[in-house]
């Protein structure tokens, strides 16, 4: 079986960056995401986390976002999240994270 590999693509956008997540985010991809998010926050520019190309997220992936969210809140760092496709966004809804994380209004 050929599983979609988890990948993070960084795109410059104005004064900040967009992190585009593709593939399946689970325990294996969580450390990479954690690192990319920390790097973006420390760089200090605006951050948009784009989940629109993500195919799957599990609790390890959600956990990384929760941890990042707490750190961002504590540092007064603002960022936004572009929602993923229905099966991904459903995980955010069921965990209540759709209310807790700064999801951008859908285009």
């Amino acid at each position, binding site marked *: 079986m050929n599983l979609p590999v988890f990948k993070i693509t960084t795109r410059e956008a104005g004064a900040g960056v967009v992190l585009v997540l593709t593939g*399946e985010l689970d*325990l294996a991809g969580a450390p990479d995401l954690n690192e990319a998010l920390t790097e973006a926050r420390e760089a200090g520019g605006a951050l948009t986390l784009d989940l629109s190309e993500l195919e*799957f997220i*599990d*609790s*390890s992936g*959600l*956990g*990384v976002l*929760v*941890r990042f*969210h*707490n750190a961002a*809140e*504590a540092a007064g760092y603002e960022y936004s999240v572009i929602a993923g496709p*229905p*099966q991904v966004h*459903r*995980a955010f809804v*069921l*965990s*209540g*994270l759709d*209310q*807790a994380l700064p999801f951008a209004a859908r285009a």
Partner: protein
Amino acid sequence: MRAPTILLADDDDIGRYVIATMLRRAGFVVTEVADGRSAVSAVLASPPDVAVLDVKMPGLDGFEACRRIKSHEDTRHVPVLMLSATFLETDAQVEGLETGADVYLTQPVEAPVLAATIRSLMRARNLETEVRLAAAEWRTTFDAISDAVAVLDGDGVVVRANRAFMAAFGEGVVGTRVDALDVGRDSGELALGDRTHSVRVDLVPDELGKSPRLVVTLSDITVARRSERERAEAFVREQTISRTLQQSLLPERLPSDERLALHAWHLAAEQELIVGGDWYDVIEADGGLWLVIGDVAGHGIAAATQAGQLRHSLRVYAHEGFGLAESVRRLNELVTGTELTDMATMCILALSHDSDEVRMVSAGHPPPVLIPAGGPPRLAVETHDVVLGVVGAHYEESTFTFAPGDRLVLYTDGLVERPGEMIDDGLERLVQACAGIEGLEALRLHVVTSLVGDAHPRDDVALLLAERQVH
């Protein structure tokens, strides 16, 4: 390229002159001697490309000279052409060839025939040299291989073996059958003393109708096997610790009460995965019972330990009289303040013995299934709050009716999550599976069979079922 050299021995000056002239004209460098003894020492001193010996010489004749050249280690590769002044009987020719002479020519010999014969001898010699070099190179390579390699014939007899193979099976192994190899060839592995070898068998393509030969290669994989075994042992160790921890997570027995029947079940994940952080608990509090189910993100000892901390902390809050929402808020503070874990989901239902109303707080946990005594099963609530782990999260109670005869199914997401599908499909399957089955144990069995099957699930699954008894 240097001119080929010929050693010519003939006691007859004229005959020798004629032959030497023919050879020089053909481009050979000729050294002349007049007797057999001188021929042997000249060949030994400086081996020519070809030696041409007259048969009849005084003292040491051509036959004897040839025999001596062919029997000496340093000169046996020198081709010898025997010349006879007169036609010899077949017996004599045979004698000439049996001394090791390569060619036998009778005088008078014509110049082109002589030159062609000598060139042919040299070509054969060069080919032989190449084959000998290739064989030596191959032998050196063969012996240099650290794997034990042997060539077996169709009957399993060792035809050739390299140094490592002989070190393993003895110097005299060539020409014998090694029975141990039969076992190894079947299993792919062979233990020799305290070493483990992988066994590889290659078939040498059949040639000219000969029975096929096999090349057997034994590679020492003792070290690789050892670290594999150590990894497996470490894995089993962690699994044992985790399972023990998990047991400590779950209540030894559930409170039994004639007003409420309870049944719980924990299903371990498939063997490759280590335990998860799933737990359930039943706490006597508030003049009733709290039914608790939860799931810490991640696997292994860390997750199991974290789940244990959450479980015991909640018991403390309940006994100190904190309400549902307040208890969950405190658990959230515990999680975020100590960075106990990134995330956990949890659902608590507070059941009262003298009320049909159930109070519930869900921290991002999949909703319980309610099976009313007189209606189809459904998800008990649609609303929930956020998972444990978000700083400053707010939790609120919601309520629903749980009348005598109604049943509840609390579970963790391992039961309903399938990769590549909407979790709603799993929830729908669960609700369907809850229909039409009486009792708690039978219901649990049916639910697990329908949603997980016989196999171990990908993730741990915890289930807690409750039924309000009718009086």
